[in-house]
């Protein structure tokens, strides 16, 4: 953890540690600011919350949202739930596999794009759906996905 990261974590701990059940809001705040949860932050968090390191790591590992590694430059969350499966969502997954060599979950070879499966983005009436760098896209066709990926390569991104 860099000194800047440590200062950020300590600042967030001061504003969250006293709130009842404040651990999840704290973890979200750290991840929002740093992009991930540095493992070296765990002892600081444990001490501020008066809980063991094992407990903090247990919480971090339980939730799909929390990551202990820095994310790729772009994050694509593809919905793999039933409604999207029924509308061609699996074809989009196959397209990512074929074009970028990305399995269901992972980072592209150039380290630019991280793929994460999600189960429902609430856009089921306009399936299939995905979220690219926090922005929701629905009625996604293979063409649309290609354009979105192309947009990322342009440097500007569709975000």
């Amino acid at each position, binding site marked *: 953890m860099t000194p800047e990261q440590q200062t950020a974590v300590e600042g967030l701990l001061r504003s969250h540690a006293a709130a*009842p*059940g*404040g*651990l*999840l*809001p704290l*973890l*979200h705040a750290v991840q929002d600011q740093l992009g991930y949860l540095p493992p070296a932050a765990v002892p600081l968090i444990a001490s501020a*919350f008066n809980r063991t390191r094992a*407990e903090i790591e*247990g*919480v971090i590992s*339980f*939730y*799909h*949202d*929390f990551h202990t590694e820095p994310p790729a430059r772009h994050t694509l969350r593809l919905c793999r*739930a*039933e*409604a*999207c*499966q*029924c*509308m061609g969502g699996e074809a989009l997954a196959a397209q990512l596999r074929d074009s970028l060599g990305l399995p269901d979950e992972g980072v592209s070879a150039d380290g630019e794009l991280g793929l994460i499966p*999600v*189960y*429902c*983005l*609430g*856009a*089921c*009436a*306009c*399936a299939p*759906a995905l*979220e690219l760098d*926090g*922005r*929701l*896209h*629905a*009625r996604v066709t293979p063409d649309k996905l290609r354009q979105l990926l192309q947009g990322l390569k342009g440097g500007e991104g569709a975000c």
Partner: protein
Amino acid sequence: MLTVYIPMDSVACAVGADDVAQRFAEEAARRGMALDIRRTSSRGLFWLEPLVEVDTPHGRAGFRTVTPEDVSGLLAIDMAAVRDHLLSIGLVDELPYLKSQQRLLFARAGLTRPLSLDDYLAAGGYQGLEKAAAMSGDDIVANVLDSGLRGRGGAAFPAGIKWRTVRQAGADSKYVVCNADEGDSGSFADRMLMEGDPFLLLEGMTIAGLAVGATRGYIYVRSEYAPAIAVLRQAIVIAREHGYLGDNVAHGGHDFDIEVREGAGAYICGEETSLLESLEGKRGTVRAKPPLPALQGLFGQPTLVHNVLSLASVPLILARGAAWYRNFGMGRSLGTMAFQLAGNVRRGGLVERAFGLTLRELVLDYGGGTASGRPLKAVQLGGPLGAWIPPSLLDTPLDYEALAAIGAMLGHGGAVLADDTVDMGRMARFAMRFCAIESCGKCTPCRIGSTRGVEVIDRLLAAGNAEEKSRQHALLDDLCLTMQHGSLCALGGMTPFPVQSALKYFPADFGLTSQENAQ
């Protein structure tokens, strides 16, 4: 001045509503034209989104699936000849899909601006709270009991009984917790309501707080719903500024405030005890019941836990009366239900109707069948733990008891349509896989059964001869029975429903003949 209405709902924006609104602003500026662009909630007619509406002397007229390229043409048309436009759908309120609905919860959908308190008040908002503030807690609870309201999250437990239990529990502090962890595929009613009519949920929670004697409420929203979280947080600030939250709420002498908490991508946190653990800052593992959350819930205190739509039903019950609410529905399923049409459906959207319409009316009359135009193969009702229902059972009425009789459930009211290209063997495998990914790990049937379930289904699908098929089939039945009866909560307990319904109605997808299946 011309007024155009464009939804700010996140799914409308995901298909281009923001871009359309921006183009309207640019075009109007370019022409030096006075244009009032109002960003409203969504009507829930998602196949028409982005749906742009304009005022006409007869009501609001709509234009369907508008793109930025259409905007210039729309600004040029003569308002008297709106109907002649290629994208015109006529008067929106006259659409049969909408006109035949009984919109109580979603009465304001598409009409008001989500964060305009004035819009909310003008459309009847906070009348329920004004009444409740002048009543005793016992009287409020009696109203909810009389209304016959049952929890809309899936379990359909009578709400009033829960309220009475929390009210009568002696404790220094009590809580109202809103379960907004709407994780079921095919469901989006909670999302629509939180994004589109946030004050309604705040009002319902506040009434609940006054009724049970709680001073603090939490809304636990799944992290996938970032726009809903943002809207709710802004609405809370506005409600506080106007005396609808905080000290001495609505001058009734009680304090109540609400905080939004963000989930972290765990489906299991939609289970109420797991949600409470998560709110306490722990792993979202399921608690054994008893003790009931109503007696020992959040931080060990009496806690009223309800789904979004249950709480949002309360203001109307208080404002219009329990007897009025009971006029809707049938049998023991009273009030209205927000059904959601999703997946491979021609007209996906929100259908709020009194209980009692049939699945056929929902799926074919409203939904219009599959979007692909291919034959309908099955409908999964109630999310990933719901049964796959074949077309032969479409005449089942959509109420809690009738669905239970065919081994299905309403759950949160989402219906996912699948056409004949969908392989039910794969969907059964997915059900087990999903359970394995999302299991909290506390009980063995769910934690291990789901992983073994994927393996058994793989072996069943791969089996080369009838003897092996039959052996794996028997093993799967046995495993499903164990999960159903031995799991601690509905995740492990109901994952067998999509699996067994797929086996029962679509044996061919497993390489079984119906005769083998019956054995």
